[in-house]
């Protein structure tokens, strides 16, 4: 079971990221819990300055852009 967190304060790009992550999870059939982190105090704990950012199992794997679904799938398989 993976925990995926999407860090971002609800900007359009963050919503898009959530969308893509959900699709990637479905496509790969990964058992994962997707969590949206919108509180800045919480986001700052990951030392992330550009949102949206993607955190898988408490590790920041991507910041500052909307990922491609393919890339997320690769990350999920790792």
């Amino acid at each position, binding site marked *: 079971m993976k925990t995926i967190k999407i860090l971002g*304060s609800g*900007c359009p*790009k963050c919503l898009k990221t959530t969308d893509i992550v959900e699709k990637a999870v479905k496509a790969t059939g990964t058992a994962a819990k997707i969590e949206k982190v919108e509180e800045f*105090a919480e986001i*700052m704990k990951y*030392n992330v*300055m*550009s949102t949206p950012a993607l955190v898988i199992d408490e590790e920041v794997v991507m910041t500052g852009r909307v990922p491609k679904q393919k890339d997320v799938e690769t990350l999920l398989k790792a």
Partner: protein
Amino acid sequence: MFDWITAIADYTIYHLLNLSEGTSLSESLHFFVYDSIKILFLLFIVTLIMGTINSYLPVEKLKRFLQEKNLFGFEYLFASLFGAITPFCSCSSVPLFLGFVQGGIPLGVTFSFLITSPLVNEVALALFLGLFGWEFTLIYAITGILLGTIGGAVLNLFNLEDDLSDWVRAIIEKKQTARSHEESLSESFRERIPGIVSEATDILKGVVLYVLVGIGIGAAMHGYVPDTFFQTYLGSGEWWTVPVAVLLAVPLYAGASGVIPIIQVLVVKGVPIGTALAFMMGTVGLSLPEATMLKKVMTMKLIFVFFSTVALFIIISGYFFNLVL
């Protein structure tokens, strides 16, 4: 350089639509076709260039530079320059702000970054380049960067740390060191291209409607409003026109990319360039959405001080350019 666009516009208006030269209608349409193509073309090129710079100099790297190097007072200038090359989005201003102050970067230096970031952004630069030419664009960019530098340095004199929200102050005091991370993959230029292009396309998609509407209104005014109209009402450069222009600009933030083409026509029709410049800086630099976001990390008082300082410097630049240009 843009002869090919003139050719396209000539062909469309005088050949395809079969309009005769020199009428208000054909003038306006020609202006619209020519400007739209030129500006969208420049927008794409400029966002590609900025995207490339940004891909190699992400904000995390810039922050580390400000944190670790002793810059002998030049940190304001650097922060302001970094703000200029970083793409601005009101939703990213808060994490940026927090990242800076948490990293021990002084509040004033952080403000330098925050002032310049929206003021000198790729969309505004591309529009200026297309509408006013490179000299004006350069003047605008330099003014914006200096404004951020001086604004930040001045704000630093006020000791504003106490006016941050409580939890932000707690972060600074604890120097809460979060896990730092490095972007794990280092990509070659070729691998970066698709990301840069899709980012540029996204930016373009986001503003294209505003830009076209703005050019449309500008084109109509270009053809139909008499040349002396604005000179009669706005052009004589009374002292109050500059502050009023800045105030009027604030609510226009969302449509900044549509406002700039209209301003260009106003300038052609006699509005003083300093007043126009102040107005444009007001539309992009004083962003209400940014103020709303910043409310989460600072008190209303600090937001007020921040925005009025920026507004004041914009007004001063407006007067300055009305005198000099």
